[in-house]
């Protein structure tokens, strides 16, 4: 009997101690983590909108977009998140779009888990750079108007489709030539 009581007590104490340690670590690190994530988001938004130095979060019809502003407060473009499933997992992107010209201004990969050396090349400038200046009227079809990474057609297609799908939604909210 005694042995069973000891078993329960020890397991209980260890579980409670570990729960307390976890709760404490979470409380200490959570504000820091939030801050890091916000900073990461801001960096990616400013990167895909040329000339932007500040960003503003806007909710429109349940879709979150980020408006990039320069020092004088002029609107330079909008950035929106896009995601799609790649070869190994979800690919998350930040896409810059200029509604006045109806063109993309940049693409950043936020997170992905594609094969290193193959699909992971989607993060490289040589791949993402080709979306700069692409018009919303373009087809966005891999191997036609989008250059695929050799040996990584699935990853290339996933990125292209994710951009196109989100872009179509955004264009409905912010039509080409319209106000933003």
């Amino acid at each position, binding site marked *: 009997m005694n042995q069973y009581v000891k078993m329960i007590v020890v397991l209980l104490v*260890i579980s409670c101690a570990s729960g307390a340690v976890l709760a404490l670590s979470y409380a200490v690190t959570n504000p820091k983590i939030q801050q890091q994530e916000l900073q990461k988001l801001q960096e990616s938004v400013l990167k895909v909108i040329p000339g932007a130095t500040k960003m503003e979060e806007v909710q429109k019809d349940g879709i979150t977009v980020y408006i990039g502003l320069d020092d004088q407060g002029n609107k330079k473009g909008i950035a929106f998140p896009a995601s799609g499933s790649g070869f190994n997992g979800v690919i998350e992107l930040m896409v810059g779009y200029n509604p006045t010209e109806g063109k993309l201004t940049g693409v950043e990969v936020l997170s992905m888990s594609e094969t290193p050396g*193959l699909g992971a090349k989607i993060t490289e400038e040589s791949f993402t750079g080709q979306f700069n200046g692409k018009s919303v009227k373009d087809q966005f079809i891999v191997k036609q108007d989008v250059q695929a990474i050799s040996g990584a057609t699935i990853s290339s297609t996933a990125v292209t489709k994710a951009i196109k799908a989100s872009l179509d939604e955004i264009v409905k909210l912010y039509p080409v030539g319209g106000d933003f």
Partner: protein
Amino acid sequence: MQLIKDFVNGIWNENPIFRIVIGICSALAVTTSANNGIAMGMALTFVLTCSSILISLLRNIIPSKVRIPCYVIVIATFTTVVDLFMKGYFPALYNVMGIFIPLIVVNCIVLARAEAFASKVGPLRATADALGMGLGYTWAITLISIIREIMGTGSVFGYKILGAGFTPWVIAILPPGAFIVMGILVGLMNLITRKTANSADGH
């Protein structure tokens, strides 16, 4: 003397990857580039050392019937704490190592050393063993990842070393390549060990 023996044990005689062949699911999955290999090795060594020390200190308190759940709780707690602190305070490091940290919980080396060693000896010997095992794991997966990175992409630690004329063997960085490279290395290790054992016997 005993401490040195415990330390060296994990590096060669009982190398977790090449000799005991445990913890290979992470070893096969992350060894696509040399940077990954080292990062995973360091993260594992840290968690292994911390949990071995704690389990060694608690060895007389934990009843044997509930030891496995106790070890799992200790290991999972350490891993999560490392994960949280790294995310909050070392974001650059987290970007490189982040995806490997949760994998440590399911790495059976940590549990195996807790069960087979740390729960039976004092904290000093447990530390020596954990550091040795961690280092053994690190050099083994780094070697695998260097070979796979060179064959699969022609570079090592991200630097191109083979010229443009080299056609990468893509299979090396895909999952089958991990099994092929590891199999060959385990075979080579066995060959070396057998040779040295034979010459020690005077053959």
